């Protein structure tokens, strides 16, 4: 029995005068503890796949099985999600944004400590009382990551989480994400446009084309990865070729 299995997943969007097939039969098995990075051109279905997994969209056809159990609106996947923008609640402090998944149940002392631990892990010690507008883009995105991790999800979904950041912040957060991945024992699924980023971070790179999987390329490299190494360059060529074909 595979950990997370996606079977013949299809998604059709009904526009005014046409139907758009965003996903066209995705079959995929995701191993526990992996770091799957999804790349593809705009409109290839990357974000739609992630949004279905997050429960933000419903599939038109197909099914998602998690540990053999079928997932749906009544039994969603245990996910935390980071979006392209931080999407922090502007009226909540950094600490309460981190603890956002717990607000309806009330914030206990234990959760307060958990938020402080997460802030420490993200290098944001002392910022617990800051408001989102006082943070830089990179800091806000770290808080969004902290929020996704706070509910201890088995799967962390990230939809181009570093897309809106400058080069240096982006590189720093790539290293940060890999560190969290290596220490957290969680399964990461990330969408990105940047092939170099995909190969620096992922254990497998999935290339999507027209809502279908064009290629699934394992990345058998140790962290931190040397982008000048021969293997890295040959994997880069492989992904780029798959993308060019796409």
């Amino acid at each position, binding site marked *: 029995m595979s950990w997370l299995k996606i079977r013949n997943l299809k998604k059709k969007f009904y526009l005014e005068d046409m139907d758009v097939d965003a996903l066209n039969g995705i079959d995929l098995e995701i191993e526990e503890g992996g770091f799957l990075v999804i790349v593809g051109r705009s409109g290839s279905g990357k974000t739609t796949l992630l949004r279905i997994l997050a429960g*933000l969209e419903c599939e038109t056809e197909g099914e998602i099985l998690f540990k053999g159990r079928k997932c749906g609106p009544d039994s969603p996947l245990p996910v*935390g*999600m980071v*979006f392209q923008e931080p*999407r922090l*609640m*502007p009226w909540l*402090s950094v600490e309460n944004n981190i603890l*956002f998944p717990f607000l309806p149940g009330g914030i206990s002392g234990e959760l307060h400590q958990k938020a402080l631990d997460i802030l420490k892990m993200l290098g944001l010690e002392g910022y617990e009382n800051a408001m989102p507008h006082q943070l830089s883009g990179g800091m806000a995105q770290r808080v969004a990551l902290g929020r996704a991790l706070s509910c201890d999800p088995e799967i962390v979904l990230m939809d181009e989480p570093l897309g809106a950041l400058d080069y240096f912040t982006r590189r720093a957060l790539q290293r940060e994400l890999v560190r969290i991945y290596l220490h957290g024992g969680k399964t990461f699924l990330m969408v990105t446009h940047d092939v170099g980023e995909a190969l620096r971070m992922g254990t497998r790179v999935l290339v999507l084309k027209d809502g279908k999987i064009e290629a699934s390329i394992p990345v058998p490299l140790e962290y931190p990865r040397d982008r000048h190494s021969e293997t890295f360059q040959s994997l880069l060529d492989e992904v780029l070729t798959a993308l060019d074909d796409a």
Partner: protein
Amino acid sequence: MKISKEGFMGSGLTVPVLLLILWWAGSNAGWWNAFLLPSPERVMESFILSIRDGELQRHVWASLERIIKGFGLSAVMALSFALLCSWFPRILVHMEPTLEFFRHIPPMSTVPLLILWFGIGEAPKIILIILATFFPVYMNALQGIRDCDPKLTEVATVFGYSKWYRFRYVILPSAIPSILTGLRLGLGYSWRSLVAAELVAASSGLGYMILDAEQLSRSDVVLMGIFVIGTLGAFLDYGFLWGIRRYLKRGIEA
């Protein structure tokens, strides 16, 4: 209003003080007829006399009582209705044309009917305040709720929030600025409509006091009444803002 770091010049008091000086100088130099525009000293004298014999307090309290009742009722009704319409959008589909009709009726035009139906007691004045303040409060609240960024509600959905919790922890807090704007506008409108109502049919209140003074040709009392209304309105607004800010600071988060 507060004295800013720039001192007196930056506090917003410069214009009123300049106007007061001009008024005082003009009155003393006899630039205009003292009956048409009495001097500041004369108005102040009326103010002190009115306080001494308790008349001003009686009228102010009568007006404030109507504001508290009318605006309080209106705010509760408008906010409840806005919440109801946002929760059940079908209601709005049925109600929108009716609401549009009522929104465009000037509240003062209903005074003759209100007097006919409810007499000259408190009811028509309270209803007039409700009519004048319902729409700004309702429309701002509804707009605030509708304008909530769907990206924020998506975050709540991902973390398993129910519809009610999405509303309580995301939509409502994001609508607070709009709701407050509506309440402030409503509070201002309630003053205007109240004074208008008291000018028509009342035996107490600041509007009545002004009308009575007009009939007795006491322009100093008319001016005093205008100053009291303006000052009270401004203080109510500042007080309202101060209270809300304190509440928000204490933690809308909780």
